[in-house]
């Protein structure tokens, strides 16, 4: 009896100690997780102004920016470029150390707001498409002439006959639409004589399903179109499904944009011929790095070409 009592004392003493320590650990963990004081403060606060669309392209830009911020001990707040929300207008009052702007399609408005930032000595870089100015801001993104040329080369390689090509721009990807002339110049330079008709320019709105209706209209109005180029991942996915529904796979070739899992799956199935990648992570990364460089040294390259990449069935 005495023996059991002593064993019980030791056993329950250890259990009590264990429960106490576990409780203490959990309480400390809970307190630390809610206190938010655990991390050391960052040196710089940058703002990234993007369209509200969160497709793989813009998500990639954000990921790249956050990765660079983490590496360079900076923080990036994400804002909308939508003029109705007035966020870029008020950027000069927010006390930020730098701004990364993916401009609107209206260059004049964008230029005015960028000038306002400049007047407040806030370093600014532009991504995705450039805004012409007397004193240009540093630009980070792909060379859209090169994008057009590479698309042309791919379109030429996937079909042997004359090409009847439609190029679908989108409000969801203002960067390419803003420099559509460069893109089309690149296309024409690559295809030249093989184009049976001038490139048909089309445009979708911010609705991710808008491409579906656009395709139905396109084939009713232009049934001879045999190659369609998209400049937004959402439009690419919607078009691929529409092509399957209309039983046009193999007759009409789709050149998509982005590397969403759905797009890659459709490339494997042969629904989409290939897809254009503009390396959004690198755009975001280089943008933050440029701002950090401006803060640290006062200097950054005027333009950084982040390049493009083509994904097709052979590269998967």
């Amino acid at each position, binding site marked *: 009896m005495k023996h059991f009592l002593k064993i019980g004392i030791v056993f329950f003493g250890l259990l009590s100690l264990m429960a106490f320590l576990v409780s203490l650990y959990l309480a400390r963990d809970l307190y630390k997780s809610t206190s938010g004081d655990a991390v050391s403060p960052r040196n710089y606060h940058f703002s990234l102004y993007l369209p509200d669309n969160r497709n793989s392209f813009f998500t990639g830009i954000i990921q790249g920016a956050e990765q660079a911020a983490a590496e360079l001990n900076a923080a990036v707040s994400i804002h909308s470029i939508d003029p109705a929300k007035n966020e870029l207008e008020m950027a000069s009052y927010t*006390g930020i150390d730098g701004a990364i702007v993916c401009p609107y399609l209206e260059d004049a408005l964008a230029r005015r707001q960028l000038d306002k930032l400049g007047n407040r000595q806030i370093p600014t870089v532009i991504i995705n498409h450039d805004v012409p100015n007397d004193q240009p801001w540093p630009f980070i993104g792909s060379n859209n002439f090169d994008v057009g040329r590479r698309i042309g080369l791919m379109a030429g390689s996937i079909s042997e006959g004359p090409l009847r090509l439609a190029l679908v721009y989108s409000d969801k990807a203002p960067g390419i639409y803003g420099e559509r002339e460069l893109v089309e110049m690149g296309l024409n330079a690559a295809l030249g004589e093989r184009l049976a008709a001038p490139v048909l320019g089309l445009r979708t709105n911010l609705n991710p399903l808008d491409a579906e209706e656009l395709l139905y209209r396109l084939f009713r109005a232009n049934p001879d179109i045999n190659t369609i180029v998209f400049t937004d991942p959402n439009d690419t996915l919607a078009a691929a499904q529409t092509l399957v529904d209309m039983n046009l796979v193999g007759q009409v070739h789709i050149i998509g944009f982005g590397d969403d899992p759905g797009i890659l799956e459709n490339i494997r199935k042969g629904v989409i011929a290939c897809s254009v990648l503009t390396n959004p992570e690198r755009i975001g990364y280089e943008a933050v790095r440029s701002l950090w460089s401006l803060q640290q040294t006062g200097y950054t390259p005027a333009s950084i070409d982040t390049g493009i990449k083509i994904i097709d069935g052979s590269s998967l």
Partner: protein
Amino acid sequence: MTLSLIRRIRNSISLQMLLSSLGVFFILVLSTAYILFSSMRLQTVSDRSFERERFITSIRKGLEDYQGPLLNYLSTRSSNALSQILIDTQALRWQLPTYMPINADQTDLKERELYSLIRSYLDLADQAMEEKRGRNISAYTRIYDEMAGLLEYINSEIGKISLERSRNQMDAYGIFIADAWSVQLWNFLFIIFVSIFATLMLLNAIGRITSPLVRLSAMAVEISAGNFDSNDIETSSVQEMDQLVQAFNRMKRDIHQYIEEIRRQENIKQEFMQERMRNMKMEGLVRHMEIYALQAQMNPHFLFNTLNTGMQLAIVEGADRTGEYMEYLAKLFRHIIRNKDIIVPLRHEIEGLNYYFYLLKVRFPKNLDLILDCDDALPDRYQVPVSILQPLVENCVIHAFKDSPAYPGESPSRQSRIRVSAALEEDRLVLRVQDNGSGMASETRENLLHPQSIDKSSLSRVMGLENVIQRLYFFYPDDPLVVDIESGKNGEGTAIIIRIDTGRKPCIEF
């Protein structure tokens, strides 16, 4: 120092009880305090998530209250409005955190931007008032427009931050509740385990106190049953209990001794009572013997007178041998009767035996050979019980030669012999009466050599050999070797041997 303190604590029940109670109390208080503290901590954690929300709301209210006096001043340049603006501006600036660290959390970054927006708004307000004082109408009007847009944006940002924070809190609250539940569960388990631990500690302390008491009660039961031979209770290393245990053990031993003493005294008392009874019986016997003697006194006188008359008659008639015979017979009677002592010198017994030998030689002149062999130094040095030799010789004459054709004297074919000897062997006086008669059966010998109780021996009028043996046993109760009977070879002859320890006094006091 520390070791002695620990030893003191271990050895003191009062200190142990005090420490156990205090320990259990301390553990329970500590655990309850910890539970309370952790609950308060959880409440603090929970409250912190709403703290910023309340702060932002208060900032928004401050900005709303700020608009009236500002517009009033810009419209009328009222000094009251100005003082109110200055007070509000100061209050708002004090409210805003002077430093907000930059971290990766989007809501925190937006909040940081919000405080910067508010500071910019207050700076613009200061500029507008400066321009008002400088009466630069277009400038303060433009600034006011800018402020209106900025205030609208600030309000929308506050709304967005609140909404975002609420959304984050909704997500975090579930995690927080789950974590808090885990903490509370472990707290509950802690309380349960600590309570059991404390209870066991108390039981252990109580056990250390009660176990010696239980052993004491068990020992008390054994003692009450009369068992004093069980081992002493072991000490328990608790000072106070050990004092009790030692006292109990001492009490047990003392009670045992007292009981043994009482028992011994009771035995002595019983022996004393037995002795008293024996003495009373002896006194009764003595009185009986005295009466008997008184009754018998008449007969010896009559017998002496008669014997004297017979002796004188024999002398007158010229029968000298008859006269001498009568004279010896009278001497023998006088010898037996006149002596009142119980223990007499050996010489007295030898003299009486000589008178009896003369009478036997007259009775059996031819066939009975009587031999008396006694060292001359012995008769006056040693004492023996009275009348122990003559009855033995008489027993030989009656029983040893009863199977002979006639009395020993009547058979010329066989010479009967009785030899009486007295000698000193080591520290014993050895008296031997030996015959060459028909011997004694072993059963008879066993029956004779068996001490009888005094009342039996005294009241049964045992005579002859048996009387002598019982008297010897009576006078020497602690000496079983005082008398013995030996048979000769082939069952012929008997020797009765009396061995009197010369260093021991006979028991003659009743």
